[in-house]
């Protein structure tokens, strides 16, 4: 049971940091993205986290899948230049293919590299 429970929790709050640590130990560059502010109806609460490695692997979430792609892209830049970044995502415009939240909420995400 313990093994299956562990698997069930793969995407929980704690495992994001555990994966970040594991990837670091494997010698990979790692960044962590954290939701630090939300407005309106946003899918994940403040404090939600996503860990990203240099190969683009990710664990956790900062939205319901709406902005993760863009966050991975930003994270790779943060890993390259080691300057933490605060990024705000607003409502998406379906016609313009803009990255954002279809639900009408807004989130602010802090992206930092593990040094």
């Amino acid at each position, binding site marked *: *049971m*313990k*093994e*299956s*429970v562990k698997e*069930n*929790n793969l995407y*929980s*709050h*704690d495992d994001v*940091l*555990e994966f*970040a*640590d594991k990837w*670091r130990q494997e010698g990979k560059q790692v960044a*962590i993205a*954290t939701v*630090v*502010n939300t407005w309106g109806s946003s899918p994940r*609460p*403040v*404090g939600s986290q996503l860990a990203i490695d240099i190969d683009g692997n990710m664990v956790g979430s900062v939205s319901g899948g709406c902005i993760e792609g863009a966050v991975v892209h930003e994270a790779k830049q943060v890993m390259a230049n080691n300057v*933490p970044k*605060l990024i705000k995502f607003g409502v998406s415009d379906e016609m313009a293919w803009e990255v954002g939240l279809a639900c009408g909420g807004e989130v602010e995400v*802090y992206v*930092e*590299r*593990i*040094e």
Partner: protein
Amino acid sequence: MHSKILKELLSAREKKLSVALVSDLSTGRQALVYKDSIFGDLEPEEEILNHARDNLIHDRSTRIDQIFIQSFNPPKRLIIVGAVHIAQPLIEIASTTGFSITVVDPRGAFATSSRFPGIDLSEEWPDEALKKLQIDNRTAIVTLTHDPKLDDPALEVALDSDAFYIGSLGSKKTHAKRIDRLTEAGISTNKIEKIHGPIGLPIGAKTPAEIAISIMAQITQTLHRST
């Protein structure tokens, strides 16, 4: 984030300590704020420290200008009294929901590691076991035995604790008798009303797994109503 902060955070987690991560978003400097110590290269002002410690109590994360305070609390706990059939699906659903679980049952054949592999088990009498488990406001307690000599002592300790949820399995009839017994034992009506009985949200649950879902749904509802 410095890897030293990450390591310290993971070690706090391992030790089941409450800790707040305070980040200055403009500089990237960070500090881990414990109940009575600080770790890291950021020296937060008194006001921020108070805020961080207050956030831990309320299990929330907040942003104050360029400072972000994130709470890392140990997992919420579910104590199950009665290593009965329903306990098995309940453990699975509660684990997925992020609870750490303890099963209490003094009847030797029930709380065995072959029936509950990897789960903390106690074979002590429920009241003794519960007293040792340091019940706090992030703990839920569920009694499943519907045997008064096991459920009642557990409930008496539970009702005197800060547990955010107390639920008891049993029909309306069983629950009515339970209320009579607890009243007779001198427990106030106010306290007795804290027990969710019959347990679970009314979703017409029949199988053990369905009952587990209804219990977990009610625990979730209570958790978010009280925060």
